[in-house]
């Protein structure tokens, strides 16, 4: 404790940094969040539960959750492959590939939304191909999943890449010297080192997918019970000035997002524990 107090006195700026940080945090993040809670308190538990258990709302939870999960799972696999390819191999155009990964971050979700919808509608470049087999993509859950895959691409790749880059070659060399082939080395030596980053990336993508609006709202078609995602229900309620319902549903979403974050942190902590202190 002594050193901490000394630190405060030696390096200047504690007071003002704390002041600015807390003020801005309070005004921009905490107070608005608090108003949600205050509003909820005014509603009463009974009304809240009633709102969120309405069939349509529950259906939207299911749609959001499932599509987010599948999209994030696909991104987990593809993200791992992408990170591996970017770190381990050399090939023409690699730098361009690496630079493109952040596109979903840089591109406005609305633009992604209309582009993907156009692409996968029955007249679109890709949609027309699939419609020959009777498969519709736009305005279905498949479409939603595709949009969610799009926005989730960077999360897993950028989570796994740094870990893979820093991985000490001697682990693989040791396994190789002991007779292991490349697949064994990957599964038993490399993968455990990556699994924590993989989970983190999955969790981040999943959290993002749950709350995504812009890129999904165009491609979903927003048919209640079928392709209506939770953020969209909230938006509809807001447009109807039904703030109460909107707030209640929003609360559930927030809780889900926090839960995901919490789980990620726990898994990360557990893995760090094993490396640092042996579990």
């Amino acid at each position: 404790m002594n050193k901490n107090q000394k630190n405060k006195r030696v390096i200047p700026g504690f007071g003002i940094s704390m002041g600015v940080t807390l003020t801005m945090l309070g005004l921009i993040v905490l107070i608005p969040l608090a108003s949600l809670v205050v509003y909820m308190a005014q509603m009463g538990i009974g009304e809240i539960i009633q709102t969120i258990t309405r069939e349509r709302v529950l259906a939207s939870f299911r749609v959001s959750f499932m599509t987010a999960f599948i999209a994030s799972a696909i991104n987990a696999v593809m993200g791992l492959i992408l990170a591996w390819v970017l770190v381990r191999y050399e090939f023409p155009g690699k730098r361009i590939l690496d630079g493109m990964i952040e596109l979903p971050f840089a591109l406005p979700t609305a633009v992604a939304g209309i582009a993907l919808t156009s692409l996968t509608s029955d007249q679109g470049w890709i949609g027309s191909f699939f419609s020959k087999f009777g498969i519709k993509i736009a305005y279905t859950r498949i479409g939603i999943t595709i949009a969610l895959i799009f926005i989730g691409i960077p999360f897993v790749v950028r989570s796994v890449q740094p870990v893979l880059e820093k991985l000490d070659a001697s682990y693989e060399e040791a396994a190789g010297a002991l007779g292991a082939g490349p697949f064994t080395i990957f599964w038993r030596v490399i993968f455990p080192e990556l699994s924590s980053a993989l989970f983190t990336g999955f969790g981040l993508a999943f959290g993002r997918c749950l709350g995504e609006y812009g890129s999904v709202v165009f491609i979903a078609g927003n048919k209640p019970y079928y392709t209506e995602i939770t953020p969209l229900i909230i938006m509809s309620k807001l447009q109807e000035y039904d703030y109460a319902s909107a707030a209640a549903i929003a609360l559930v979403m927030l809780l889900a997002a926090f839960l995901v974050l919490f789980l990620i942190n726990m898994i990360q902590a557990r893995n760090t524990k094993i490396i640092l202190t042996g579990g």
Partner: protein
Amino acid sequence: MYVELKNINKTFGDYKASDAVTFGIKKGKLVGLLGPSGSGKTTILRMIAGLEEPDEGEIIIDGKVVNHIPASKRGIGFVFQNYALFRYMTVYENIAFGLRVQKANKKAIDVRVKELVALIGLEGLEKRYPSQLSGGQKQRVAFARALAPNPHLLLLDEPFAAIDAKVRQELRSWLKDMIERLGITSIFVTHDQEEAIEVADEIIITNKGRIEQMGTPIKIYQNPKTSFVASFFGRASRIENYHGFQCFDQVAGAKQAFIRPEFVRVTKKSEVQKYKSSVSEGIVEQVSFRGDNTELRIRVDDMAVIAKRRLEEEIVEVGEKVDVFLYRIFVVDEEKVYLLENKSLKDDSVFI
């Protein structure tokens, strides 16, 4: 010869790591590769293991040329400097890894792992993770892991570099003991002379990618073949022109000399010195206590000579004038090292 390297060349960019390296190691021997950082010793080790490929030359193990055989199939055990224990596996699983790869049956694996755990003295710690072990314990597990699949050749890359000084001593004797018991041909890399002398049956000295000399520790110490070995091995003072010390033969073309502390006898003016006529006078510049002796730096004319005195002898002080007698010196020309004896020693019949 069990392991042979023939004319190995290896370059990394513009750095020549191995320059016409050729040597052979007999079966069952424990050999140390000793040299300064960047001398190429680790590269040699890794090429024998198959972790690097030579640009030219042949690597032969047990009569077979192994250049194109991958590391996983060479039947060697490798111990890394930083252990490289698999962080997500227990001690047991680490040691069992090589056997599991060989698809040995479960019972056999269990027997062998338990045997090795007992050998390295870590019973009771099988379920621990590497992060729960001390440096010395980790190195022993790395050793056991390398031995588990019964390799014919054991390679160790600076195995004690990352370990505390005190533990290092214990581990060194333990390792030498183990290897002798198992009788396995072993090669280890080190930059620590003491370690090489203590552990190895034979030493190979490397410098700038080349092999300077190979032989038993004593032979290399007493008969260095190159000026590098003469200066590197042991603690020597370098003299630019030894003719200042008159009692040595002239060697054509050789002026540089190396003087080991044990070649020098320093006597106070007041002490008895047999060869009083052959001494040079010097002034003591520095006196340092070295634990079991006193080290002196003495200036003779414009040359600095390092010498030692026993603790029981009378104290010598800085600034004192003393007599310096050289029993022998190493004189070097371009290629060879000559060991010259003080001529006065031959005329032992001449007494004062």
